């Protein structure tokens, strides 16, 4: 009995000393991702995970909202329950996620909102890209290309993302604002592929059947432009006379950096995920105690055949 008491006392003593033995404070970052089923989302996850590795104080938990608002709300509640030190969230939709994000923020946990916003201002900071600006740059690029190539008229075929989604609307309206710089360039056809390469193929095939004189194919994301490229190749069109461009600029083997290097896409505009920036700001907020700006707008980058190799090195792209 005495021996037992002694052992118990020793255990309790060691346990009470343990916190003091730990060197630095460990922070748990909870990241609620809206879904894992798109390469761009996977890139965001990978970039966050890679950036977290740079900070030994950080531990990362990622949850998958499976593109469902209710599931994502449950995920955030779960992270709150686990008492994470900071929440990073890319919300599926603004309104359904606002209340639960406010709950986390009101509990004193910093919240960084990535890429898609929530309503109101009950969050620490928002980091995101500017789709309208990117669309405009794409439009200006096409306007210039049409002029350089002396195409008049210059027929543009647009493949849109999920119609009604803010990125698709912004990339469409921005593009048209940039395109007006060349009066002979016009969008003569616009179909949706809902961001998917597999849907882009049959849609583009039909449009190439209806219009034999397409000069430019503008995809709201690179995957759609690639799908159209395959359809154009199947249709026997003269690919050298056409320009295919898209948005995303991902460095993975089926991404646009490799595609531009291999001569399929003629241009791609990077839509940054903001993952790395989110983690860096998390460090500044938690460890350095800095007060961040409410909104950080990420710039874009442009990938052309002339700079593709350099961008490949910059973004650590993988060839296959």
């Amino acid at each position: 009995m005495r021996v037992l008491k002694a052992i118990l006392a020793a255990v309790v003593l060691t346990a009470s000393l343990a916190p003091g033995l730990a060197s630095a404070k460990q922070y748990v970052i909870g990241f609620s991702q809206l879904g894992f089923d798109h390469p761009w989302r996977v890139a965001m996850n990978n970039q966050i995970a890679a950036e977290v590795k740079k900070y030994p104080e950080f531990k990362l938990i990622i949850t998958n909202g499976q593109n469902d608002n209710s599931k994502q709300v449950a995920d955030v509640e779960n992270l709150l329950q686990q008492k994470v030190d900071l929440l990073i969230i890319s919300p599926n939709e603004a309104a359904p996620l606002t209340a639960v994000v406010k709950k986390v923020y009101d509990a004193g946990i910093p919240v960084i909102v990535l890429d898609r916003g929530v309503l109101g201002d009950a969050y620490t900071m928002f980091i995101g890209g500017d789709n309208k600006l990117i669309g405009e740059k794409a439009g200006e690029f096409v306007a210039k290309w049409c002029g350089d190539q002396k195409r008049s008229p210059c027929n543009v075929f647009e493949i849109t993302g999920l119609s009604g989604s803010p990125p698709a609307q912004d990339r469409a309206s921005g593009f048209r604002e940039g395109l007006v710089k060349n009066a002979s360039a016009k969008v003569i056809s616009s179909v949706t592929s809902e961001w998917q390469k597999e849907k882009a193929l049959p849609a583009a095939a039909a449009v190439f059947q209806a219009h034999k004189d397409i000069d430019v194919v503008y995809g709201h994301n690179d995957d759609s432009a690639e799908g159209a490229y395959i359809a154009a190749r199947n249709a026997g069109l003269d690919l050298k006379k056409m320009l295919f461009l898209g948005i995303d600029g991902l460095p993975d083997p089926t991404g646009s950096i490799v595609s531009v290097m291999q001569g399929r896409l003629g241009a791609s505009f990077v839509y940054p995920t903001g993952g790395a920036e989110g983690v860096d700001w998390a460090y500044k907020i938690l460890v350095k105690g800095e007060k961040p700006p409410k909104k950080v707008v990420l710039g874009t980058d442009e990938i052309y055949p002339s700079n593709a190799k350099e961008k490949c090195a910059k973004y650590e792209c993988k060839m296959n």
Partner: protein
Amino acid sequence: MTSPSIAVPVAAPARKRGRLLEKALRFQGYLGLVIVLVIGAVFSPTKDGVNLFLDLTNQMNVLRYVAETGIIAVGMTMVILIGEIDLSVGSLLALVATLTAHLLARAGYSTAPTILLALLVGAAVGCTNGVIVAGLRIPSFVTTLAMMTFARGLVRVVFGGLAIPLLPHSLGGTAADSAFFFAGKVSFIPVPALVMLVMAVITGLLLRFTPFGRHVYAVGGNAVASRLSGVRVELTRVAVFTACGVLTALAALIHGIQLNQGAPNDGITYELNAIAAVVIGGTALQGGIGSIAGSIAGAWMLGLIDNSLNLNNINSDVQLLVKGALIVAAVSLQRLQRRS
């Protein structure tokens, strides 16, 4: 059987009318297809006097791009004929397509072993579905729903979340050129369409003229009576699910090779497309009635609707409305004719 020379003359015209009606009813499954072809042709844009919708290149394009749905629908027809369902085909397609890309482009396999392995994986998954349904007696809706989730998780865990590029040497890639036969053409017919037609004919003949085919219809019509008549019901079920898995794997091969990539996130909702094609084609969801030809017609019809809407540059939201309405209209006209 020869009738005696004292045959009643009044009966003859009625018999003739009966035969004509019978012939018409046999083709009632294709009425929807005909309606869509007519509407598509009427509303088609024309260029230099060519009706773009009916143009051979366009129709061949449509067949090329419905081939994957069509091949899966051939397998799904058999599954639905025995009164079951297979929700796992979309995930299986992603699994096999990604495996194909990995084998051809990364692991340096040649075409024949890749095809073999792909079909084997399809058979394995299908067989697993069948054994669980027939052996453990878990309803196929639940079993294949679970397999749908499991297979999707499996492909993401094994291959990561990113797509694997699949390009032939001739286009600067790392995969054997011969595999890309599946994306090419034989004369003017796209190979995917050819594969779909061949699988449809083989399966159709199998269902019509072999004991296995009769067992499929029997089990779907009345499983208890079939068992009492000596039909190996469990074996039939396993065989059907395995066949569906193999056909899905074939569709997956074509999918990956046509799309130049194997992606773990592809094939989502493909099961719905296949089921829609089968049901539109006249196969009853409770089993026992239906045909392969009807399912191919259903798949083709769905492709034609999409094609016509895209040719006419219809706004994508409006497309959804029109498609839904057209499907219901075409199928109700079929049902009306069947009843008369």
